[in-house]
């Protein structure tokens, strides 16, 4: 997994609530047996018309540079498909900002080096209003609107932060504790 410490980037605003993983990557694109290549179908049915033309009103077609997606509350609800996180990272996103994340999505994102940053509803509105670049600093757990200097702290578990900063994943940690698992099985299973 790639390491993450700090990112300064323009945003791609998606001011909608309850963006579900069926929108992020529709089921008909889940037929691959690898983790790669999902970015081209990210938000497929919003990004393209049914004839396959670009929908020019959609944020991802208007802004092509941002590595930070900013969305309304309850982002990533619905299906547990990790393909949603793969599609976002494959497309080039490194951070998703929202006032609320669905649990499974949050876990999937973190397991793929995609940082979910939860901010207050007011701060989220300020981001949408400013449309400015953001600075996301994982070490200090801060997110800053560069145009206005407004800043907020965000939460992340110390363990997950350690993983992201060092590019480690959960399996490395679990595998290093195999003895404990075997001991647990002797006593419990």
């Amino acid at each position: 997994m790639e390491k993450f410490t700090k990112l300064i980037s323009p945003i791609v605003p998606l001011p909608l609530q309850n963006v579900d993983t069926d929108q992020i990557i529709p089921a008909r694109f889940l037929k691959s047996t690898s983790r790669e290549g999902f970015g081209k179908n990210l938000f497929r049915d919003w990004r393209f018309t049914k004839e396959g033309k670009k929908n020019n009103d959609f944020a991802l077609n208007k802004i092509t540079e941002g590595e930070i997606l900013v969305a309304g509350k309850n982002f990533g609800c619905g299906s547990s498909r990790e393909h949603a996180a793969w599609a976002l990272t494959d497309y080039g996103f490194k951070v998703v900002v929202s006032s609320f994340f669905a649990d499974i999505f949050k876990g999937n994102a973190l397991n793929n080096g995609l940082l979910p940053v939860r901010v207050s509803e007011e701060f989220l509105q300020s981001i949408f209003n400013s449309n400015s670049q953001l600075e996301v600093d994982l070490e200090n757990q801060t997110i800053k609107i560069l145009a206005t200097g407004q800043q907020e702290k965000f939460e992340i578990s110390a363990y997950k932060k350690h993983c992201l900063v060092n590019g480690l994943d959960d399996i490395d940690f679990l595998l290093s504790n195999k003895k404990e698992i075997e001991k647990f099985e002797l006593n419990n299973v």
Partner: protein
Amino acid sequence: MAGKTLFDKLWDSHVVIKGEQGPDMLYIDRHLIHEVTSPQAFSGIEKRGVPLFRPKQTIATADHNVPTVDQHLPIKEELSRKQVQTLKANCKKHGVELYGLGNPNQGIVHVIGPELGITQPGMTIVCGDSHTSTHGAFGSIAFGIGTSEVEQVFATQCVLQTKPKSMCIEVNGELNKAVTAKDIILYLISKLSTSGGTGYFVEFAGSAFEGLSMEGRMTVCNMSIELGARGGMIAPDQTTFDYIQGRDFAPKKIEWNKKLAYWKTLVTDEEAKYDKVVSFDAADIAPMITFGTNPGMGIKIADNVPSLNGDKSFKKALEYMQISPDTSLKGKPVDYVFIGSCTNSRIEDLRAVSNIVKGRKKAANITAWIVPGSKRIEAQAIKEGLDKILIEAGFELRQPGCSACLAMNEDKVPEGKYCVSTSNRNFEGRQGPGSRTMLASPETAAATALKGFVTDASEYLN
């Protein structure tokens, strides 16, 4: 000592290492896999060069992406065929039991687990599918995971999880006669919203749930994820034990008595405290239907669609559905009726539908699909003669799989068409690009198929 909730008891007894500043390392008793979310996890462990740690605790089936007609023939669509073949090859290589196409135990992963007796009280159960919450109906901790976590379970039979908070949803009182388990859960989601349970694990308690069959309890727990909750559970009781006894994987003889004694201890202590408790009156619940593009956008069939409220997402949902605010859905013409999915495809659902459509015909404007949750249910339906009733009524009885619940295979609702569906998600395009889904109970779906427009089933129930 203060009492413990059932959830706390089960969680704590499965923690291998408590995370001081992060997630707990949770031991997993049963792992269910399917063709769509497992291939990348198999290649993950292979790349790391680690073996599957406890292959006997994993069970596989093919369900998400299988055709629901002509299952004896090779799958036509190349990518789907490859996915199903990859599952078969992976299971063989790593020693995992597979109930694939053609196997008499094949079916939707959350249908076959309980049906075979694999799902038991007190267990931790995971699967790379969010509706794993279904298995909570047996008093187990069951939740959906992503593919990286599938890989964790493959490698170590554990997942790293932050312990959710606990919520109790109590429903007491007398249910109206026409109210089904599906109506109860659609009602609760409409009240609590699709994020009302985020961060929590829910325990459903009260007479409304105690009175439900296991099939009904599974419907409720299945959709607990649509509350945003990590999962939902119902404490096991005699109904649970009776359901499990005698099933293929159920404990036998001495082992049964031992297990039963343990299962009887699986209750929330009286002095235990939940982080949150919400209560509802069973008498307020009525047959429900959804009008929007998330499962929380539900109303009583007798009520009107809510007014516009300035919320952009709400307006967008109504535009997508082409449904007007302040109108009734009753009488709204419908094109498709889908009875299936891990929410409502069990034998009890098929019986309920058959009861309503027996000796009647579906309306001419309706395409009606009924997709049993498993081969065993299909066989049982044929044994009971339900297949004839359904076919005579003009329903297409298809072969087991997820089908139009997620429309990954050919079973798609065409663009712009309305479908009254017994599945669990009405997201934009969920049943096919541009499809418009209204979630409801099997009874409502059956009555709607007969009339050709949204109908509550009361006139067909005696």
